[in-house]
């Protein structure tokens, strides 16, 4: 576990910055000072200013809030919805299960950005709608995992015994199936978290995420693209913040996967097993 101290510390730092941004930020992130546009990094503005004279360091700190909030909310909403639907499909089976899994297939067939852009076009861009959009696009991943795990568990000895003794289905699901599904779902969730941070930033970059003047790393980077030849700091610092966060989260996610789910290390394995919706014998 020693190798995890750094990622955990980093994540803790980001969390602290997000929570304490009003105290830590040197300037008001929305303070427009037209006379101080596009200043390079210097004493009063460690990360320079943007095209409206706002301090980039402060905006980056406040951007942490958006990133963490959106990613966490998206993972939770998608996770809860996906796990619930996946378990229903796996436990009940029948035509309901078939319909759910077909919807899963459909959503998974569309490349992320296409779907995301469409969803935002329909709902309109805002922080809440970005969460909704991400959740709508990612819930099938949890559903698939929950589905196959439910199927697997359904065939196991102790569950069959419980069914035989006449225990109510709901109780069995919660008592026996859910504890099997949760670790796997959590693994998926931790791996997804980093991805959600990147996706939120990407949507903001395209102008589809949180709207101005709210600070988001993606929107600062989008400005950075416009001013890339004159204001390199706009493209560099928020991206660095993004990169470090995702790296830390990925490392933690890997560790979680190692601990909770050693039999499914290779991505390929996971994909294959998820597709096999057969009642399985217990694997080693």
């Amino acid at each position, binding site marked *: 576990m020693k190798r995890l101290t750094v990622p955990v510390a980093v994540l803790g730092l980001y969390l602290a910055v997000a929570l304490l941004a009003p105290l830590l930020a040197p300037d008001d992130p929305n*303070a*427009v000072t*037209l*006379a101080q*546009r*596009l200043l390079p990094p210097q004493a009063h503005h460690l990360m320079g200013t943007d*095209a*409206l004279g706002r301090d980039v360091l402060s905006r980056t700190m406040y951007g942490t809030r958006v990133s963490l909030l959106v990613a966490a909310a998206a993972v939770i909403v998608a996770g809860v919805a996906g796990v619930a639907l996946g378990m229903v499909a796996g436990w009940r089976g029948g035509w309901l299960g078939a319909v759910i899994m077909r919807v899963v297939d459909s959503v998974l067939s569309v490349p992320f950005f296409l779907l995301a852009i469409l969803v*935002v*076009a329909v709902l*309109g*861009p805002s922080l809440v709608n970005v969460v909704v959009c991400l959740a709508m696009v990612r819930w099938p991943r949890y559903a698939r995992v929950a589905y196959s795990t439910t199927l697997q568990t359904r065939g196991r000895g102790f569950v069959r015994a419980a069914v035989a003794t006449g225990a109510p289905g709901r109780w069995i699901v919660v008592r026996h199936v859910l504890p099997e599904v949760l670790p796997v779902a959590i693994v998926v969730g931790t791996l997804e978290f980093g991805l959600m941070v990147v996706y939120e930033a990407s949507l903001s970059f395209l*102008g*589809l995420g949180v*709207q*101005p*003047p709210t600070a988001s790393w993606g929107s600062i980077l989008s400005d950075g*693209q*416009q*001013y*890339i*030849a*004159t204001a390199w700091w706009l493209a560099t610092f928020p991206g660095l913040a993004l990169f470090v966060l995702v790296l830390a989260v990925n490392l933690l996610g890997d560790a979680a996967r190692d601990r909770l789910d050693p039999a499914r290390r290779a991505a390929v394995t996971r994909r294959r097993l998820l597709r096999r919706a057969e009642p399985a014998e217990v694997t080693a």
Partner: protein
Amino acid sequence: MKLDLIKGSRRRRARTAAGALTAVACLGGAACGIRPATADRAPGTLVIDTANYPSTLDPGKQYDADTYAVYRNIFDQLLRRDPRTQALKPWIATSWKQTDATTWRFAIRPGVRFSDGSPLTAEDAAFSVNRILDKRFASQQFANFSMISKATTDGADLVVHTAQPAPTLLTYLTTLSVVPERYVRRVGDERFAAEPIGSGPYVFASATAGSQVTVKANPLWWGPRPSVRGAVFRAVPNVASRVVDLQSRKADLATTLTPDAADQIKRDPRLAVLSTPTERVAYLAFNTIKGGPATDPRVRRAIAAAIDYAALIRNLQRGYAKPVNSLLTPLAFGYDKALPDARYDPATARRLIAEAGARGKTVVMDTSPSFNPQIVQAIQADLAAVGLTVDIRSTDQPTYLKKVQDPGHNWGSLRFGRWSCSCLDADGVIYPLFHTGGIWSSYTDPAFDRLVEQGRRVIDPERRAALYDQAFRVLARDLPGLGLFQDYAIYGANSRVRWTPDAQESFYLDTMEVRRR
């Protein structure tokens, strides 16, 4: 474990290396699979970076700047304007007169040929007009020519009939391109848009969809031999990239630059910024009907006083803007010199807001990414300084349009925009923006309606000017909208190009000069 190299493995290493090389070659080959769109730098050829690929080459369809920049060089227009005085000058029409209130007669220049050799006649001119008026053709320019009921010919002359007296007819005819009737009828609209044939100073040479269009000088053109012998229009959506292209001399001319980009170009001694004031006005419009605090004229006057116009012009527009006194620029007909310029007076603003009891209230500003977010946010900051909180509601363009064009006026309190009618006339600005029932109008005043309705029916310029004077006084009293500044068109060029851009943002290559380095 040592890396044990046995003799036989040399062959294998060679095989693997060959495999890797093949892969790299495939990479290169895949890259070359598409014909590279390298710039053609024959002498006298200009490479021009624009923001968007033209949506069509049919001059009867879209007429956004990046699209007409290309096709108005392939086709001739009926009339042109003098670039310095803006006066109308003969082009395809050598002379014109109004024979009665609703009829105009244009003499068509003899001896003009389309680039396929066929002669250009009055029939072609009439066809070009009627084509745009044909509802099935679905021209985006229909509204600009809707005052025409039909176009006919009489001998070698074009005769235009308008439904009512139309004082703005001539100004819109400067945007009418003449297309070859026989060719269009023969190949159909779709093929015509892909393979246009015109009578203009340049002919269409080739196009790589989404990427670039090439034109070459037309040897059959009736005008003086242009200095520019050919041009490559490249679509480069990113402003920063257009600037980089200029700096690396990959492009000779770049259009649609931002003020910040102009600053960057100014720092390079080998490049020049070409700019000109245009008829485009940056403005604020209010929802006077259901806009919350904005329904109170005192609040609107307060907002007009709260904005630091000089700071906008100096800091955000970097000097590429001029103050205005209304929604019109001095270039447009109907401009009233007597009106005072907008003034920044935060003390008065605060007083008016207090009077109206609007202190601390929230106004909603609707916007979309199409409108410069820096200006929107600067306005938000200015209004906050006088006690009005602005809630910026940004959506994408289609949603924004639907909202602010709602006939029930259920949108926010104010919005920012930039307006140009390409007509140099007050009618094209204040009628659509403020006449009751217009899709853009959230204002209603019967006196104003009467004034602008008359304004578009009266031919005599003096009477028109008087009507518009009165109309502007109504607008100054009620302030359903206010002008922020007159916008400039900004281009970047290197030492090969000599050109003075004109206020109508037309992009005539035949007015440019190519230097031999």
